[in-house]
């Protein structure tokens, strides 16, 4: 197994641990989201699922037509999954179902800001080290942080815009 496989395995284990941690935390806090938010989140999961389905079909077609020349299939799948999560998050943010009933956006600004900064730093460092491309293909080690940084930046910007709008709306 190469480094990329270990990285994917590491990410998967991390995601599973985070999911277990979050589900336990969610069970402890009753009624974290209200009925409207739960309805919107359900729709968000549906949109995320269909996005995944669409991207997977596109990826299969690209692979079959030998058009996937810039990235490896594994990296393309990883990117598709991150895009699905981003679509879900942005849909929830835009429809006021991302933050829990008494959730504060500040905590998320810090968390997402840190992710963007760290992932951006890793990408910039790999560009400076000249490790972005390997055999003419984008490497997982440099591509993954770039994808993460871009997606989290999109989420961060959406959250910022929505927070400002909500504050204005609350003041009116």
């Amino acid at each position, binding site marked *: 197994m190469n480094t990329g496989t270990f990285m994917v395995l590491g990410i998967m284990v991390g995601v599973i641990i985070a999911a277990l941690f979050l589900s336990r935390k969610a069970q402890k806090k009753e009624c974290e989201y209200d009925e*409207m*938010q739960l309805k919107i989140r359900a729709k968000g999961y549906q949109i995320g699922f269909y996005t995944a389905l669409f991207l997977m079909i596109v990826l299969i077609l690209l692979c079959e037509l030998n058009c996937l020349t810039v990235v490896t299939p594994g990296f393309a799948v990883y990117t598709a999954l991150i895009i699905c999560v981003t679509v879900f998050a942005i849909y929830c943010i835009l429809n*006021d179902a991302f933050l829990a*009933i008494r959730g504060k956006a500040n905590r998320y600004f810090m968390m997402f800001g840190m992710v963007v900064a760290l992932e951006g730093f890793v990408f910039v460092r790999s560009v400076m080290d000249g490790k972005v491309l390997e055999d003419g293909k984008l490497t997982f080690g440099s591509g993954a942080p770039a994808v993460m940084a871009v997606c989290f930046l999109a989420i961060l910007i959406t959250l910022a815009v929505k927070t400002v709008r*909500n504050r204005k709306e*609350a003041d009116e």
Partner: protein
Amino acid sequence: MKNLKLKAARAAKDLSQEQLAQLCNVSRQTINAIEKGDYNPTINLCIAICKALDRTLDELFWNE
């Protein structure tokens, strides 16, 4: 359709959307969506709102 009766009842009680949301254990955005007519609440939430505003279901949610 906008729920102006709810908005008026909330204003009569001198409550902000945020305060009413806290009383009903929902987000402010949910109260805003109900007032704007963008969200149709469940009977449980309607009852919670009525209790918070000391009104009946008919007074707040019945349209002739």
